[in-house]
């Protein structure tokens, strides 16, 4: 079901001058641009309400774009129905409500692999249990009964079921204990290692910058800074102005 592996000199995802919002005439994104290249982990940081979630929702087709463009593997996906996004090789883990709580863990995974042949789905599920051994124990349990960290694992595994080339994660660390955050981010590195690019929206700037290749700082609906993880981490003004976490970054 996943798209053919594209040429690696075209960005996986390119967002250019995107204007988008929930209601007409109230743009939340006001000309945002970003790019995710082959094999990259790209972080999107920014204060609460900056429009980070709106950005990934717009890519997923859940928020209408007014102008600008969204290219996946060089082809515009503007106006694409949300349910066709997985077919382009892009998987998305929303910030909230990212698992079907009334479905079992295994059913969540099955739905993630929708459309593929059943044998392939079973194979993928086994692969997910290998990646997240905890989940195998809870396979028959309703996902709503898992802990926050375990649910996040289900959400990521569900997204990976579609064999995406690009994984978009919206604040996967929200509400998790530091140990759990470390574990999730460790998994992200493992996922990247098998060739999946990652667009990582985060509040937890320190953790995100530590694993990303590049990062963007979003504020007032536009990207204000772009740089390598190390550069952004080292820049005190960025921390002070936009991440509201100077002390945390420095510590």
């Amino acid at each position: 079901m996943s798209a053919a592996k594209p040429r690696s000199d075209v960005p996986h995802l390119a967002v250019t001058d995107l204007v988008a919002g929930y209601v007409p005439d109230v743009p939340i994104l006001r000309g945002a641009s970003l790019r995710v290249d082959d094999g990259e982990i790209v972080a999107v940081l920014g204060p609460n309400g900056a429009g980070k979630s709106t950005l990934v929702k717009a890519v997923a087709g859940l928020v209408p774009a007014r102008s600008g463009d969204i290219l996946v593997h060089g082809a515009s996906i503007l106006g694409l129905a949300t349910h066709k996004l997985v077919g382009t090789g892009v998987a998305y883990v929303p910030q909230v409500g990212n698992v079907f709580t009334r479905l079992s863990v295994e059913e969540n995974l099955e739905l993630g692999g929708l459309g593929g042949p059943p044998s392939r789905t079973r194979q993928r599920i086994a692969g997910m249990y290998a990646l997240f051994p905890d989940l195998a124990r809870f396979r028959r349990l309703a996902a709503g009964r898992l802990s926050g960290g375990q649910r996040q694992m289900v959400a990521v595994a569900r997204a990976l079921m579609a064999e995406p080339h690009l994984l978009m994660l919206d604040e996967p660390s929200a509400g998790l204990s530091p140990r759990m955050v470390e574990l999730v981010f460790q998994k992200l590195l493992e996922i990247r290692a098998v060739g999946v690019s990652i667009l990582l929206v985060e509040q937890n700037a320190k953790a995100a910058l530590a694993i990303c290749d590049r990062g963007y700082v979003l504020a007032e609906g536009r990207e204000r800074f772009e740089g390598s993880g190390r550069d952004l981490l080292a820049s005190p003004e960025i921390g002070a102005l936009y991440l509201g976490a100077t002390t945390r970054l420095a510590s």
Partner: protein
Amino acid sequence: MIQVLADGVVAASFIVLGVVGLSMIYNILNFPSFAQGDHIATGAYIALGIVALAGTAGSIAGLSFGWPLIGALICATILNGLLALLIDRSIYRQLRLRNASRISLIMASFGVALMLRNLIVLLAGHDPQYYAFAIQPALSIGGARITPNDLLAVIVTTMMVVALHLFLSRTTLGKSMRAVSENPSLARVNGIDVDRVIRWTWLIGAGLAAIAGVLLGLSVQVNPSMGFELLLPMFAAMIVGGVTSVYGAVLGALLIGVAEAITVHYIAPEYRQAVAFLVVILVLLARPQGILGEKA
């Protein structure tokens, strides 16, 4: 006592078959359809039309009808589903595309209900009608007397509930339906075509309603308001069962059916419809989430 239980289970069968569609539509399209009762009636009348053309000669194993009725039942199930699909396309879908409020959808379903019922009157008149008249001696099962037609209703309903369970728990489409009813936007993100799920919801909901209509018609009679009279018990069953769960609705239907039978036997048959209302009010006051419902 056994007789009351038996009558209750028979009454519950029709509610069960109707409430499945009501509950699915409620959970997937997010509004209580006031037309679900009348979908039961249209199903019964479609089958009646087919029987009028094909006849229902003979009688199978003590039942009041012959094989043509089985054929009519199957055709009515499909045609009734298609009718619901047509209504969705031309009305509800248009409202969804306009982001209409839930209240508008409820009002529209109210309008659809009256249109369907009166289209029936227009085409078939007010008078009660019957599928067949063959004599059927009542059976005695464990001390309860039950006609073969009623027994068939219970058996068919049980089969349908089992089939529904297998469908929802084993098939991709069934799981997709559960997914859409819980979280439509995550379902879309997952690659589920929500419009397709909605189409199947109408087909299944109205299809089962047609089966309810035919069985009810065999058990009692066919008349234009036969389905509308089931609407309140169906709402009650859905609410008692916790709204979010089809299984809860099925249990709720059993409860309402037995409560109705108790009222008919021991209290006052003429207040049968009021029972559903009382049960609903009691449940909502005691547990706003219903019996099997989860906290929102």
